[in-house]
Structure formats: C-alpha cells, structure tokens
C-alpha cells in the first residue's frame, strides 16, 4: 500500500517525468522532499510492484504495430486455467486473462492480445492460439482495434 507522500509522487509523475537533466530533483523541489527520498520511494514502489517499470510508453500504432487484435475464446471451464497459462507463455501474446462471460451475448472467458503489422499477421497468431486450445475451445472471435480513443494511463486526482 501507499502513503500520502507516495500518492503525491504518483500524482506528480503519472503524466510523465520532467525532461530535464535532474528530473528527480525537479520533482523533489516541487513536493518539498529531498531528491534522495524521491528516488528511494520510487525504487520501493518498483520493488513492491506499484510501479511496473519506468521508461518510454510507445503508441504501438506509431511504431508499426498497426493491427491489434483482442482474441477472445470460449474455453471449457475445467481447462481454461491450464490452457490460459500456455497461451500466456506464447512469446507474441502481450496480455492474457480469464474473465467472466456475459451470456448470452458474450460467451468468451479467455482473452489474449496479439499485435502485427497486418491483420494477416494477427490472424496467423490467432491460429496458433486456436491450435493450442484444440477441442477445449467452443467459439472464438478477434476484435481489432481501429482507433485509440484515449491512452493516458492511471490518473489520480491531485
């Protein structure tokens, strides 16, 4: 969990780090902390998983991943966890989750994101997932994204 100072640090950095030679000093000054404390707390949040990583967050369309498909699968309940682990281990899958179905409109309980420079490439990757699921898969679909409507990441209120 986080305390008020961590929270203030999150609010100060959630839009990005200052692009100045000493960014942690700039944040420290803004928050009335020492730069050492800022770095220490960021390091602690990295270790606890509150921060996944620090670095560049690309717009994946802009860097050539123009086809982005959310593959969704209706997988037998007694096999979905074991198969989900195997799908998640595929090197081209960036996210893989089990989620609840929303019947009757939405029969799918396994979600895996695939990316490519073309839809054919995504379809080939979906085909590999399909082959791995075998008879445990009853239905599937792939929802391509056609527009990023928003991509700000977390925004806590100041």
């Amino acid at each position, binding site marked *: *969990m*986080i305390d008020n100072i961590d929270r203030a640090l*999150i609010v100060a*950095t*959630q839009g*990005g*780090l200052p*692009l*100045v*030679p*000493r*960014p*942690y000093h700039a944040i420290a000054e803004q928050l009335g902390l020492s730069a050492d404390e800022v*770095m220490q707390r960021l390091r602690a949040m990295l270790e606890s*998983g*509150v*921060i*996944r*990583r*620090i*670095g*560049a*967050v*690309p*717009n994946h369309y*802009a*860097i*050539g*991943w123009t086809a*982005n498909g*959310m593959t969704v699968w209706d997988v037998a309940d007694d096999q979905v966890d074991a198969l*989900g682990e195997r*799908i*998640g*281990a595929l090197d*081209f*899958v*960036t*996210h*893989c*989750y089990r*989620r*609840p179905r*929303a019947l009757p*409109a*939405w029969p799918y309980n396994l*979600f895996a994101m695939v990316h490519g420079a073309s839809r054919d490439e995504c379809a080939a990757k979906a085909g590999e997932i399909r082959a791995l699921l075998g008879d445990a898969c009853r239905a599937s679909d792939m*929802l391509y*994204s*056609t*527009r*990023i*409507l*928003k*991509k*700000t*990441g977390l*925004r*806590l*209120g100041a």
Partner: protein
Amino acid sequence: MREIAIPQGDFLQGAVDRKILAKLQGDFPLCERPYAEAAAQLGIGEDELLQRLQRLLADKVLTRFGPMFQVEAMGGAFVLAALAAPEARYDEVTALVNELPEVAHNYRREHALNMWFVLATETPDGIAEAIARIERDTGLAVHAFPKEREFFVEMKLAARL
C-alpha cells in the same frame, strides 16, 4: 521481458530512435542524472536523448515517458469494460466516457460492443461508481469484464518500422 524482433525501416528518425524504443521501455535509472546515464548506454549525449524524447512525445510516437503504475498494487482496481455505442452517437459517447479520469485507456473495436475501455480507480468501490456514471451519462449499458485470473501481462513492443 518479452521482446519482439525489430525489422529495419525509416519510420522513426534512424537507428537511434529505434534503439530508444528497444532499450528504454523500462529500467530507466534512479540516479541524479538518469538521462545522462541512459544516453551513455545508447551511445548518445544527454542533450540528444532529451531532444529526441521531446520530439517522440510531440509526434505521439510515445504517449508518455515515466513510471507505469499498477493500480492494484496500491490498493485500487483495474477493470476492462465495454459498451455498444450507436454509430450516430459514437463521438458523443466517446467524449462522455473519456471525460472520466478513471478511464485510463479506451479503444474503438470492430464488434457490436464497439468501445472497450479500462477503468483504473484508487479504491475498488470506484469501479462501480465510474460504471454507474457512464451508464447514467450515456444511457447505455456497460459490461464489466473484471479479470478472474492473469496469465501474462507485458506490453513491451519494439519498433518494427
């Protein structure tokens, strides 16, 4: 980490931009001059790295440069949700949904459920509140797909153009 091969091309401004994309999606140093340290690893100067990051952000090749947070690890919640927006109202509904700071990402997708967004809230209760507000503001039903199990998450894609 999971990296995908980097095909050659000219989309980005040369090999240095591609290297930034390949090497700087994580592990940004926590030290007094982190840009200088990262730049040295890339074989460029601090000024050049700062300028390139500024340009990549301005050109929207990068959406952000900084920490990526995991809201669940801080006691909050993170839920995928979707709605079916009528085509004639798509832009209006987009604006209503995006207005909420709790909406971290939002994508248009090809399906009857044509708007898929992620809600990130500081407390677990925030999710239901945000969904109720979107339903009230748009008059549309929101389907929530909370994760029941996570098998893999690592969104690090190398530049491929």
